[in-house]
């Protein structure tokens, strides 16, 4: 039997991972439950049902060249509503991955490129990173109950590895202390890497699996290098 995707080949449907239920895009009923569940349907031409139609008709380049993949928040409400189990979010993420890297809007790819090169999405040098962390740690040590607090960088044999979201190091320094307080009071034996400390993996958003793997691998390297027992998954 010739299916609609045989007639209209699509690289996106070929490479987008299926959901656990394994439904291929051909099974779309065009019922519109996805569009009804999606809070951005109708905004700037976005509609998950239309996106599924586009790839079913083999119109990959039309999707890839449009801003549509980038308007999606990948929240998964469309898939949650889909009676056929279509992999709508992965279709969109795969389309993102097929966009030329320099055409990826905003900071997503720029952050990935900086992260690959420098170990964090801000491109912050190690000295500056240590300065910020030590400055905030010193301030916390001024509070009652935290007098002997300090941040244990690269501690060999620690129980727990912690990584950081770059925004805490950048503009929201005041939010660094929450986990530090909890670790201190719990008597946790934790550590923070002084390089490659980035806990955010923007390859997830940019559709870049190769970059995503590099960031995950860096966490594995920390665990091996510092002989750490447990990982706290990045927040």
């Amino acid at each position: 039997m010739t299916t609609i995707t045989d007639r209209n080949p699509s690289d996106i449907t070929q490479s987008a991972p299926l959901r656990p239920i394994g439904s291929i895009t051909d099974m779309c009923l065009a019922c519109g439950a996805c569009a009804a569940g999606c809070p951005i349907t109708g905004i700037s031409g976005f509609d998950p049902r239309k996106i599924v139609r586009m790839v079913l008709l083999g119109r990959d380049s039309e999707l890839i060249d449009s801003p549509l993949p980038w308007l999606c928040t990948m929240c998964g409400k469309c898939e949650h509503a889909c009676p056929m189990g279509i992999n709508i979010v992965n279709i969109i993420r795969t389309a993102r991955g097929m966009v030329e890297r320099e055409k990826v809007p905003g900071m997503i790819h720029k952050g990935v490129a900086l992260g690959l090169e420098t170990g964090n999405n801000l491109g912050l040098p190690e000295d500056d990173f240590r300065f910020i962390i030590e400055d905030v740690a010193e301030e916390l040590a001024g509070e009652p109950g935290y007098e002997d607090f300090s941040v244990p960088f690269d501690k060999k044999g620690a129980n727990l590895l912690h990584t950081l979201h770059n925004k805490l190091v950048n503009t929201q320094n005041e939010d660094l202390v929450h986990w530090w307080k909890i670790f201190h009071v719990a008597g946790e034996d934790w550590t923070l890497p002084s390089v490659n400390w980035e806990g955010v993996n923007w390859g997830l958003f940019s559709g870049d699996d190769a970059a995503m793997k590099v960031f995950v691998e860096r966490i594995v390297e920390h665990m091996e290098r510092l002989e750490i027992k447990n990982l706290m998954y990045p927040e």
Partner: protein
Amino acid sequence: MQKWFPEFFDKYGAFTVFDLLVDYLKSGRIKIDKTMITQRAAYHDPCNYCRKSEEMFGHGYYEEPRWILGQCVSDWVDLFPSKANQYCCGGGGGTLLTPFKEERIHYGRKKIEQIRRCGAEMIILPCHSCHGQIKALLAENEIDHIPVKYLWEVVADALVIK
């Protein structure tokens, strides 16, 4: 990690923010003073810890954060709808990093409705993207007297210091 480095799990343990907080609280390693937070708080489920985690890993973190909240806050409520049917804040998927701000704020209109309906005086959530987006939404709607806090921030704020 499961996909690229499955052998990782033979050598190391791995914990989510929820696993750690539940463990610290249940084992008594940290103690909480529940009277520190007096406002009515509403809990927002991030897509990735809920719907997407349930789909990818077979477990959605619905109950753990609610249990933790119950330990730290005396008056907290759910938004409606909640858990797997929760509305996305509109800040996911990297949209905070793109120039499509107008679309992003419009997307969040449902979140603002949910917040207004439940009478929350504080929003608690465990996600950096949701935090940035909901703060922006509250400011755009001129209700930014409502603070937005991380789940672990509430725990840290209510810690009993030995």
